């Protein structure tokens, strides 16, 4: 029983699914469009809620898939299904036959410049959460120059009809508070403000993280969305928001503004997804057959989904789904 | 033996005695002069009023010499105190009596020995100068040994307090240790000097006395002379007004720092919190440590247990209130908004039920009370069903009696307009202030424990007896403050079985939720509550019953069994 299982996407979901499938005696094949495995999580410095180094997790996952057949810098350009299964053509012209396909294509980061009022790409000191994470990883970012006041804006590209994303991106609140702690660790004298709409943090240890921001780091959480950013004569950022708990508009000058960019569906897979007959849901992510018992299944027999391609998800969510998709695929092969 | 009537070793004693007498005299004048004019008049009058005069004599002996209250609390400690105080007193008395019966030593004239000056030190060093008659000699030795036996207990207590049944003792500084050492050694030295007549011991004895007397005003032993004054002042009916002045000064110096209140205090669940007990408060206030005494005053739960068990009945809670009043909270209270509330009563009924702020948070008490009153067919109305004005007690607890007036006045108006002849309260906190600060002539004020008891006893309310084992917790403001101990217990015996708690009635332990404390944190309160619950669970009851909404809420956090209000228990049995 050495059936091929085609896994599109070599991030956390793809790697974990491959690991499990291999243990089950199947032959997973990972197709990754970038030059390394690991996906977004490999770009991350530390993970919430306990500041665990992302590298630890990624390294362990990489080690587990070292014997899995992997194509890097490769995309699936065509895929057909017949009675024998799936027949994929890769961008390197190789052809692969597989009994099942797992879409583990993950997410894209919301393009912050789309929220024009925040001035990302226009004002020097506006940056994204991803860039801040990179700063934590490398210690370098010319925008961060011993800042005295740092602001975080939640829900950038989420819960916002103006950018056509009405969903909550799930991980940004927790990430914002994690990053708020981390920036305080680097600049203990800085004042850190977060502008949130609702603090949606519900996992184990998340409330402790919140209390940590309040008790240990004195992070100031302001309920209200930043509506407008501009630059003053000194190149500092002037932001406006309403403190909705206080019921008054508020104005302040910041040295750095960090935009907590939402997860969006990874659209680079759209063409293949269409060929496989997998639709999108209202949020623009992939539609699974139902959110309870069919979370890994799609309308198409033999096509499975795992991870953030169906909705914004945290790493534990994704790993859980990757493990469950492996079981689904195994049952499908042995049906 | 000796043929002099004087020897230089008496000088240290004479000096010490002169110093301490002068100090006490000045102190006495100071305290009396600081009394408000009316209080001073009261004081003089009380000294000649037979009733108070008799009480003075009774307590001066009972408390100062025999320490009756300590006997009640702890016989070993009682003996220790009696042995030292009464023994010492007797030695002085017998010494003076002996002056008239003495047999002078070789060649000294009796008349000379009985001179004024010699009187001052003679009885103290009697054996050096004269010989007693056998009876007196026996008595002197007896009392001396009695004192020494007391000192032995003190030494044991110092080394290992648990042997004498004391868990926590006060921690003293160098001065207190030194004077204590002097006190402990005075009588052994005297004994040795008398028996051996070695000059060194006479000297040591006299120097010990000097040390003791010179240090006395600056240490806790000042309680010995002050206590007498305090007893007189208290019997005169004087009340606490300001901290560190007049009457309170007498109270402060009367506190012997015996530490009985430390073990009694609900806060003594750990070492850190036991520093908040009254003994420390009195000491800090005495030492003019304003910051600390204010801190303790704000921390205290005001449960009143320390006052109840204090051998001297020192009103430490009242002193703490007066201390709180001196804290500049600067709230500038403005309760003028209460004026707009209509006082027009919707209807008139005999019984007016006032649930109070806290009871609003425990609606089951309100529901139970309604059921009871309806079942008993009472003509009642609910005063604060739709919103309540605070009774004013919490404001007073912060030392702001004047600011509480607005609330007291408004509530008084509301109650009077209702036409009720009886006011029933569910909250003991309210009960205290309604009883003490409100002027509701013609209106009977009852806590619902009393009210229910009355309904049951008059047959208005029929209850059935079940087989649940209850333990009753005495709310501080109901029990210690008004000694309402029996009514709730009788009610409970009618509806189930009453089991005893480890500490009951006047020594019951505060639930820890008391509004009296401003600064205790939730964690600290939780520790107190856990300890109080343990105490209540001593006889494994099925349910804890209390009569205060705050106790109810507090216990519910920590109790392993159901916690109910007495009204709720009764409403289940009608």
């Amino acid at each position, binding site marked *: 029983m050495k059936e091929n299982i085609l896994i599109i996407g070599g991030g956390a979901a793809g790697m974990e699914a491959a690991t499990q499938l291999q243990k089950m005696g199947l032959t997973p094949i990972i197709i990754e469009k970038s030059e390394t495995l690991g996906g977004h999580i490999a770009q991350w410095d530390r993970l919430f809620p306990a500041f665990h180094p992302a590298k630890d997790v990624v390294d362990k996952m990489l080690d587990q898939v070292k014997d899995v057949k992997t194509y890097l810098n490769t995309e699936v350009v065509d895929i057909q299904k017949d009675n024998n299964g799936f027949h994929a053509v890769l961008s390197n012209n190789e052809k692969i036959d597989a009994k099942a396909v797992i879409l583990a294509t993950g997410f894209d980061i919301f393009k912050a410049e789309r929220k024009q009022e925040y001035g990302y790409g226009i004002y020097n000191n506006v940056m994204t959460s991803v860039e801040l994470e990179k700063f934590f990883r490398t210690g370098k970012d010319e925008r961060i120059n011993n800042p005295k006041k740092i602001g975080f804006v939640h829900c950038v590209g989420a819960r916002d009809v103006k950018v056509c994303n009405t969903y909550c991106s799930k991980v940004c609140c927790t990430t914002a508070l994690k990053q708020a702690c981390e920036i305080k660790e680097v600049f203990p004298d800085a004042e850190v403000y977060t502008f949130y709409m609702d603090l949606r943090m519900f996992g184990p240890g998340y409330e402790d993280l919140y*209390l940590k921001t*309040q*008790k240990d780091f*004195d992070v*100031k959480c302001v*309920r209200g969305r930043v509506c407008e950013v501009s630059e003053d004569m000194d190149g500092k950022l002037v932001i*406006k928001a309403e*403190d909705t*708990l*206080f019921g*008054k*508009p*508020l*104005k*302040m*000058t910041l040295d750095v503004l960090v935009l907590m960019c939402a997860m969006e569906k990874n659209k680079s897979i759209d063409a293949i997804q269409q060929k496989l007959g997998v639709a999108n849901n209202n949020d623009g992510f992939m539609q699974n057959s139902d959110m309870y018992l069919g979370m890994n299944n799609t309308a198409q027999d033999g096509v499975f989904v795992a991870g953030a391609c169906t909705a914004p998800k945290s790493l534990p969510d994704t790993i859980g789904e990757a493990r469950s998709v492996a079981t689904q695929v195994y049952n499908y092969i042995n049906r | 033996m000796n043929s002099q009537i004087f020897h230089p070793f008496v000088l240290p004693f004479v000096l010490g005695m002169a110093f301490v007498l002068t100090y006490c005299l000045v102190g006495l004048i100071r305290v009396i002069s600081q009394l408000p004019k009316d209080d001073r008049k009261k004081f003089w009058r009380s000294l000649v009023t037979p009733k108070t005069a008799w009480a003075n004599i009774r307590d001066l002996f009972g408390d100062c010499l025999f320490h009756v209250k300590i006997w009640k609390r702890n016989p070993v400690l009682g003996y220790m105190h009696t042995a030292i105080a009464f023994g010492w007193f007797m030695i002085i008395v017998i010494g003076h009596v002996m002056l008239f019966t003495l047999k002078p030593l070789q060649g000294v004239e009796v008349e000379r020995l009985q001179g004024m000056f010699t009187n001052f030190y003679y009885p103290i060093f009697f054996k050096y100068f004269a010989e007693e008659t056998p009876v007196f000699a026996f008595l002197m030795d007896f009392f001396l040994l009695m004192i020494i036996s007391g000192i032995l207990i003190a030494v044991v207590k110092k080394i290992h307090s648990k042997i004498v049944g004391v868990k926590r003792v006060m921690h003293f500084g160098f001065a207190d240790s030194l004077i204590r050492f002097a006190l402990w050694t005075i009588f052994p030295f005297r004994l040795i000097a008398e028996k051996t007549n070695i000059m060194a011991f006479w000297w040591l004895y006299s120097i010990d006395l000097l040390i003791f007397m010179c240090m006395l005003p600056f240490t806790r032993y000042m309680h010995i002379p002050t206590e007498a004054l305090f007893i007189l002042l208290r019997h005169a009916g004087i009340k606490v007004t300001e901290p560190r002045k007049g009457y309170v000064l007498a109270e402060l110096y009367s506190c012997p720092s015996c530490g009985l209140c430390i073990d009694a205090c609900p806060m003594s669940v750990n070492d850190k919190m036991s520093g908040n007990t009254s003994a420390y408060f009195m000491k800090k206030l005495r030492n003019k440590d304003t910051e600390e005494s204010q801190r303790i005053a*704000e921390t205290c739960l005001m449960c009143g247990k320390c006052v109840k068990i204090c051998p001297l009945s020192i009103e430490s809670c009242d002193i703490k209130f007066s201390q709180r009043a001196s*804290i*500049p*909270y*600067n*709230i*500038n*209270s*403005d*309760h003028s*908004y*209460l004026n*707009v*509330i209509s006082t027009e009563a919707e209807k008139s009924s005999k019984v007016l039920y006032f649930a109070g*702020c*806290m009871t*609003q*948070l425990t609606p089951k008490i309100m529901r139970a009370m309604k059921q009871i009153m309806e079942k008993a067919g009472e003509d009642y109305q609910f005063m604060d069903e739709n*919103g*309540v*004005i*605070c009774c*004013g007690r*919490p*404001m007073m*607890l*912060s030392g*702001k009696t004047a600011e509480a007036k607005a*609330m007291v006045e408004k509530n008084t108006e509301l109650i009077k307009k209702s036409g009720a002849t009886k006011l029933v309260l569910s909250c003991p906190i309210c009960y205290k202030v309604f009883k003490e600060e409100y002027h509701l002539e013609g209106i009977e004020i009852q806590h619902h424990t009393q009210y229910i008891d009355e309904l049951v006893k008059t047959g208005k309310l029929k209850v059935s007896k079940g087989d649940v084992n209850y333990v009753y917790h005495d709310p501080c403001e109901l029990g210690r403050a008004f000694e309402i101990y029996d009514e709730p217990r009788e009610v409970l015996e009618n509806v189930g079985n009453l089991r005893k708690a480890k500490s009951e009635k006047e020594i019951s332990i505060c639930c820890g*939720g008391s*509004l009296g404390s*401003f*600064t*205790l*944190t*939730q*964690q600290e309160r939780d520790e107190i509550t856990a300890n109080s619950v343990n105490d209540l669970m001593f006889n494994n009851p099925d349910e804890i019953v209390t009569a205060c909404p*705050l106790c109810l*809420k507090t216990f519910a956090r920590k109790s392993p069994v159901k916690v109910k209000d007495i009204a709720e228990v009764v409403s289940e049995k009608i």
Partner: protein
Amino acid sequence: MDFGFCLSPSSHVKMDSVDLTTFNRLKEINPDVNTCIACGSCTATCTAGNFTEMSFRRMLLMLQRGKEDEAKKMIQRCMLCGKCTLVCPRGINIRKILLDITR
């Protein structure tokens, strides 16, 4: 010249110039103030709040938004009954903090 109207003061809270001395002092004595999640239980149960705009939650915000005078005015309504402290889900000793604000 009287135009029959005048410049209205800005309603913006100017965070750059807010004086946080009182709040910071309060926070130092009572680190718990930072754990307030603005649930409003204190306000909802408040005895004085029954009759006035009294709200401890808002008062804390006032101190953080430079409206100390308003906060101190609000405290005057307080009856110190302590219900707020009893209901606070974060275990904040509200009554003490109230007293500390003006102390």
